[in-house]
């Protein structure tokens, strides 16, 4: 006995079973199935598999105890909400507040300390000599630590 139908493939039968074909195609396959035992058998097997799946799933789902589902969900939500508000509360708790305050205090003291220190600007400490002419100006400077002499020349 041949196992495949030469007129229609199994994908078309699958779409037929799902009622996804146009009414014209649907009619053609309905007629075909009456005379083709292969396609008839395939469509029946497809339907039986779906029915078995639906049936078994319903039975299994009925066994699930959903009595306290809503209650459990609300408990879970409240637990999460409390967890969140606790975190927020903890963030501003006295302990943490003190930590933040001490950190800020350290920062302020450091800032004041560093601002009080003289700013160490690298550069000349004094002008040794300067000459201003009509065409140019010369300035002789000396660095503070290394005592390097800098001659600055500018054309006016």
């Amino acid at each position, binding site marked *: 006995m041949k196992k495949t139908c030469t007129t229609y493939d199994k*994908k078309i039968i699958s*779409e037929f079973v799902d009622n996804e074909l146009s009414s014209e195609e649907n009619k053609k396959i309905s007629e075909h199935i009456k005379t083709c035992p292969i396609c008839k058998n395939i469509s029946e097997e497809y339907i039986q*598999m779906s029915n078995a*799946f639906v049936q078994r799933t319903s039975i*299994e*789902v009925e066994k699930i105890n959903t009595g306290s589902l*809503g209650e*459990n*969900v609300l408990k879970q939500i409240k637990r999460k909400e409390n967890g969140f508000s606790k975190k927020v509360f903890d963030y501003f708790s006295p302990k943490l507040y003190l930590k933040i305050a001490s950190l800020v205090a350290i920062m302020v003291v450091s800032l004041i300390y560093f601002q009080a220190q003289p700013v160490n600007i690298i550069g000349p400490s004094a002008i040794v000599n300067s000459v201003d002419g009509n065409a140019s100006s010369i300035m002789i400077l000396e660095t503070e630590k290394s005592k390097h002499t800098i001659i600055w020349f500018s054309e006016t």
Partner: protein
Amino acid sequence: MTSNTDNIEENDLVLRLKQGQEWAFNILVNKYQNMLLKIAYGITLDREESLEIVQDVFVSVYKNIKTFRQDASLSGWLRKITINTCLNWKRKWKRRFRWSHQSIEAKDETKLLRGSKDDKNPETIYREKQFEQLVMSNIKKLPEKIRVVFVLNTLEGLSYDEIARHLNIKKGTVSSRLHHARKLLLESIKD
């Protein structure tokens, strides 16, 4: 008429949910728990996991109801969240090597016949039950993408267009996946 009433009820429910009314949430759970459990069970094939997934779905709904824009139906939105939760759940368990276990009872039932609907004697009932178990154990072997499409089509009765919209895939892909699911199931049952 009924669909309009349903819609008004749904709008009202969503509004109350957005206002954070606890009793509205209980109504939501009672109304949709069965539908969501079926989808979750169809994908996970595990009762405990299905219950935990649906619980997570409702928690997620509670947290995100304000973002629900109502351009889709509430059931569609819930269905989408459930599918995503199931798939994430599955990935999580896959990492823990717990997902692809085989049920012991499924192993020796590969040569069973189906009984006819007209003849419901104890033997037929037994055969039907065995066939159901055989189908379930083989559905477990279907690749994830194919199984989700099969679940939405079979358990939810969604059209190819609706499935395509839900999963953001083409209608032709839905048809191919369903055909593939049936082909694989039939082959494995007949082996």
